[in-house]
C-alpha cells in the first residue's frame, strides 16, 4: 500500500512511463509486415523509456519515489519478487521455508550469482543489507519491517535465516528489498553518501552505464545475469516532465513506450496508422481512488450519511468522465482479480432516491432556499480536500460535486499543494473529507490504514476508523502464513468496510501503456506487462539500433 511502489516488490507500470528522444526528429519507417517477420528472440536494439520525474539515487532503501525505485530495479535484485500472477517467487532466494510456528523464515540462496564487478553473492550480503536497514545511520523510510526481525543469521554462505518475535506474514514481501553488496558498501557508514548511490553495482539484469541528473539514465544488458542475459541490449530512461511533450516524442519515434492518459488511449490513438506502429495494452492498475471522511466529524459520524453519499455518487459517471470508461468500480481496498479481493460485498449503485431516504432517516429532511439540506439550523455543506495539480482528482471532485448537489448536499472543493497538503491532512488531521488514492501492494496486509491504533499524528488511519472486529481480523491476517486463513480474514474485513463506508470507494483505473510495435514478447498478465521485461526482444529484421558496447 505504499504510495511509491517498490520495484523489487511490484514492477509498477508507472515505471514504464516511456519517453524517448531519438536522434533528429525523423519519422521512423513503419515496421515490416508483422506476419512476415520470424518471431524469434534476438539480442540487440535498445528501448527508450520516458519518465516524468528524474531519479534521486539508485539505492532503493534511501529513496522514496517510484522513478528511483524503477531505475534501481534494473540493477539490483531482492530475495523475492512478484510474478505475473502477483504471487511471490524467488529471485536471489532459490526457495524459502516458513517454520510451522511462523516465526522463522529460512531462505536458500541461489548459487553462482555474481555481483556485476565479479565478486560472488553470498548470505553475508543479505546480512549486511539487513543490518543497514535497521542502522540509525541509514536515512531509510523502509526499516520498520526489518526491525521486526528478532534475530538474523547466516549459517552458511547460501542460507539466511530471519526470526521474528511473532509470525509476520508481510515479512516475506519486505525481503523484496534490493540486496546490497557488502564488499562495496561496508566502509560507508551512511550508504546514501556512498558512490553506489550514483554508480550502482548490483546482481541484476542490467548494468549501470551513465546517469545525467535530470536528463537520462543508461543501462546495458548484463551478459552474466543469472536468469539469462536480457535480449534488449540497452535501456535508456529519459526525463521528460511534460505529458504533452511526451506524447509528441512517442509519435515522432523519440520514445518507445509510455503510459497513455484515458483520452489519449480512447481518442488519439485509435487510428490504423498508430496501431501499426504501436501496441497498446490495457490492464487493471494497482491503485484506487476514494472519498475519505473524517469519522469524528458530526456529519459523517452517522453511517447512514456515509452510505447515502455512496449511493449519491455516480461511479459509472466517474469512470466515464474521468477514465473515459477505462476502469472499473472499486468496492473495497483491494485490486479486483487478486486472491484477497472479495467480489461479494455490499455495492452502492447510483441511487439518488435511496440516498435522500437515508439522509432523511439521519435527520436531514428540510431544505433551504437553495435546495441544500438542513438540520438543527445547519446546512449540509462541507469541504473536500485534495492535492493541487492532479487532473484526475480534480475531475473526480467536480463530478462528485454535481452528484451530491442532486441530493441536496453542497460540497466545496479545496486544493492544496502537495507538501502542504500532507502536512495539513496527515500531520494535523485538519480536514472534513478528502479525495485521495492508494496504490495497492500485493500483500493484503493493510494494518497501518485500518487499525484503530494507527490514528496518531502522521499515522495512516487518518479517517479515524475503529472497529474491534476489523482490528482483530487485521492482526489475524498478518500473523499467519496460511493463505486460506488470511483470505477469510480479509474477506470479512471487506464486508465490514463495505457496510461501514469509512471511505466511499470510487474506482480502479486501467493502466494504459503503449509500446512501439517492434518490441515482441510482451504478455499482459495480472501484474501488468513489465514483469518479464528481460524477455522482451526485437526480432533481428526490425532492429533499429546497433549498440556498440
Amino acid at each position, binding site marked *: 500500500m505504499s504510495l511509491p511502489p517498490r520495484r523489487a516488490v511490484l514492477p509498477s507500470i508507472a515505471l514504464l512511463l516511456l519517453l524517448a528522444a531519438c536522434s533528429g526528429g525523423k519519422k521512423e519507417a513503419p515496421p515490416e509486415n508483422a506476419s512476415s517477420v520470424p518471431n524469434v528472440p534476438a539480442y540487440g536494439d535498445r528501448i527508450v523509456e520516458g519518465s516524468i520525474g528524474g531519479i534521486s539515487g539508485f539505492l532503493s532503501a534511501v529513496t522514496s519515489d517510484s522513478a528511483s525505485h524503477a531505475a534501481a530495479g534494473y540493477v539490483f535484485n531482492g530475495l523475492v519478487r512478484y510474478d505475473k500472477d502477483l504471487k511471490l517467487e524467488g529471485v536471489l532466494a532459490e526457495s524459502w521455508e516458513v517454520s510451522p510456528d511462523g516465526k522463522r523464515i529460512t531462505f536458500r540462496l541461489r548459487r553462482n550469482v555474481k555481483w556485476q564487478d565479479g565478486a560472488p553473492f553470498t548470505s553475508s550480503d543479505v546480512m549486511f543489507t539487513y543490518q543497514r536497514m535497521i542502522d540509525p545511520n541509514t*536515512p531509510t523510510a523502509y526499516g520498520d519491517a526489518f526491525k521486526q526481525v528478532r534475530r538474523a543469521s547466516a549459517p552458511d554462505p547460501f542460507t539466511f535465516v530471519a526470526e521474528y518475535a511473532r509470525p509476520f506474514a508481510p515479512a516475506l514481501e519486505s525481503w523484496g528489498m534490493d540486496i546490497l553488496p557488502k564488499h562495496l558498501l561496508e566502509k560507508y557508514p551512511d550508504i546514501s553518501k556512498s558512490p553506489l548511490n550514483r554508480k550502482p553495482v548490483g546482481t541484476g539484469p542490467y548494468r549501470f552505464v551513465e546517469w545525467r541528473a535530470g536528463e537520462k539514465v543508461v543501462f546495458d544488458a548484463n551478459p552474466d545475469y543469472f536468469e539469462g542475459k536480457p535480449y534488449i541490449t540497452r535501456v535508456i530512461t*529519459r526525463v521528460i516532465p511534460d505529458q504533452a511533450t511526451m506524447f509528441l516524442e512517442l509519435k515522432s519515434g523519440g520514445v518507445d513506450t509510455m503510459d497513455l492518459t484515458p483520452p489519449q488511449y480512447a481518442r488519439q490513438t485509435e487510428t490504423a496508422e498508430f496501431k501499426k506502429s504501436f501496441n497498446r495494452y490495457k490492464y487493471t492498475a494497482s491503485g484506487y481512488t476514494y472519498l475519505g471522511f473524517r469519522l469524528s466529524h458530526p456529519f459523517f459520524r452517522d453511517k447512514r450519511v456515509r452510505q447515502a453519499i455512496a449511493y449519491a455518487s455516480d461511479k459509472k459517471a466517474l469512470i466515464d468522465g474521468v477514465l473515459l470508461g477505462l476502469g472499473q468500480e472499486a468496492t473495497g481496498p483491494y485490486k479486483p482479480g487478486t486472491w484477497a479481493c472479495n467480489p461479494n460485498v455490499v455495492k452502492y449503485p447510483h441511487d439518488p432516491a435511496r440516498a435522500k431516504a437515508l439522509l432523511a432517516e439521519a435527520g436531514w429532511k428540510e431544505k433551504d432556499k437553495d435546495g441544500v439540506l438542513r438540520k438543527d439550523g445547519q446546512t449540509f455543506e462541507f469541504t473536500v480536500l485534495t492535492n493541487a495539480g492532479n487532473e484526475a482528482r480534480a475531475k473526480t471532485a467536480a463530478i462528485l460535486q454535481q452528484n451530491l448537489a442532486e441530493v441536496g448536499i453542497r460540497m466545496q472543493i479545496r486544493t492544496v499543494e502537495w507538501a502542504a497538503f500532507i502536512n495539513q491532512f496527515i500531520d494535523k488531521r485538519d480536514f472534513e473529507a478528502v479525495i485521495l488514492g492508494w496504490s495497492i501492494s500485493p500483500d493484503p496486509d*493493510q494494518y497501518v490504514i485500518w487499525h484503530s491504533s494507527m490514528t496518531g499524528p502522521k499515522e495512516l488511519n487518518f479517517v479515524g476508523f475503529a472497529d474491534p472486529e476489523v482490528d482483530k481480523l487485521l492482526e489475524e491476517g498478518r500473523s499467519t502464513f496460511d493463505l486460506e486463513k488470511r483470505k477469510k480474514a480479509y474477506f470479512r474485513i471487506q464486508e465490514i468496510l463495505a457496510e461501514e463506508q469509512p471511505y466511499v470507494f470510487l474506482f480502479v483505473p486501467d493502466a494504459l501503456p503503449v509500446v512501439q510495435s517492434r518490441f515482441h514478447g510482451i504478455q499482459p498478465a495480472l501484474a501488468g506487462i513489465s514483469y518479464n521485461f528481460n524477455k522482451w526482444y526485437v526480432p533481428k529484421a526490425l532492429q533499429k539500433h546497433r549498440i556498440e558496447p
Partner: protein
Amino acid sequence: MLRYIVRRLAWAVPILVGISLISFLMIHMAPGGPISVGTDLNPKATAETRARLEAYYGLDQPLHVQYGRWLGRMATLDFGDSFSPDGRPVAEKIGERIPITLTINVLSMGLIFLVAIPIGIYSAVHQGSLFDRVSTVFVFTGFSIPTFWLALLLMILFGVKLGWLPISGIGSLEYHSLSMMGKIADRARHLLLPVLLTGFTGLAGMSRYMRSNMLEVIRQDYIASARAKGLPEGTVVFRHAMRNALLPVITILGLSVPDLLGGSVIFETIFAIPGMGQLFYQGVMSRDYPLIMGILTIGAFLTLLGNLLADVGYALADPRIRPE
C-alpha cells in the same frame, strides 16, 4: 569612484545576510517539510523512522540553531548538502545545471540584442510608420502569448510534422559518440527552439526601451544642430543619436545579470531541459531547504552585483553622472 564601489560592496554583505534570513524564515514558515514529503503516506515508515530522519537532517534543532549553522557554513562558501534523497552537495547540483541555463540565456540575450536594438532604432527613426506598427504588434505578441502553448505548437510543426528539429531535450542519445563538430551541431539543433522562443518573448522589453530612448535622443538639441550643420542623416543617426541612446543598454546589461542564472520552470518542463528553473521549483516543492537557500543567495548576490555593475557602467559611460 573606488570609494563608491567599496561602499556598495560593504553594504552588500548585510543585505545578503538580511535576504538569507528572510528566505530562511519564509521557507520554514511553509507547512510541510522535506521529511513529510518523503515519508508521509508511506505505510512502511513509522514515527520512529521520521524522528530519525529529522535528526539526520538537523531539522529537530531550533530554528536559530539551524540558521546559525547554515550561515556559518556559508561563510566558508559551503552550501551544504541537499535534503533530497541523493544527498549531493548543493553546490554540485547547482553547478551541473548552470551551464545549460547560462548557454540558453546568453544565446537568447544575444538574439534579443541583435534583433531588438535595430527594431527599436528603426521604429524610433520612422515613428508611426507601418514598420513601427507591425514591429510593435510583433514584439508584443511575443510578450503576450502563453509560452508553453507556442512552444508546443512549434514543436508539433518542426518536430512532428516536418521532422526538422528534435522535440525536446538538450542532446541526442548518441551525443557522446559524436565528434566535436557533431556535438555542437547536435546541441544547436536542440537549443534552437528554446533559444528562439526565449528570445521572442523577451524582444518587447528591449526594443521598446531602445525605441523610447532613441526617440528622446533624437529630439535633443545637439541632434538638431548636427542636422543644421548639414550632416547626412545616416551620420546623424548612427554617430550621434545611437551612441547616446545605447548608454541605457549598459544599464540593461547590468540588470540582466541575475536573470542569466534563472530559468523558466515552464520552459524547461515543456522542453525537458534540466536547468535551474526546474531545480529551483522542485526544491521548493520538496522543501529542500539548503538547495532553496543556496539558489536564493546566489540570485541575491547576482542581483546586487548586477545593480552595481549597471550603476558603475553608466557612470563610466556618461561623465555627467558621477556618484557622490
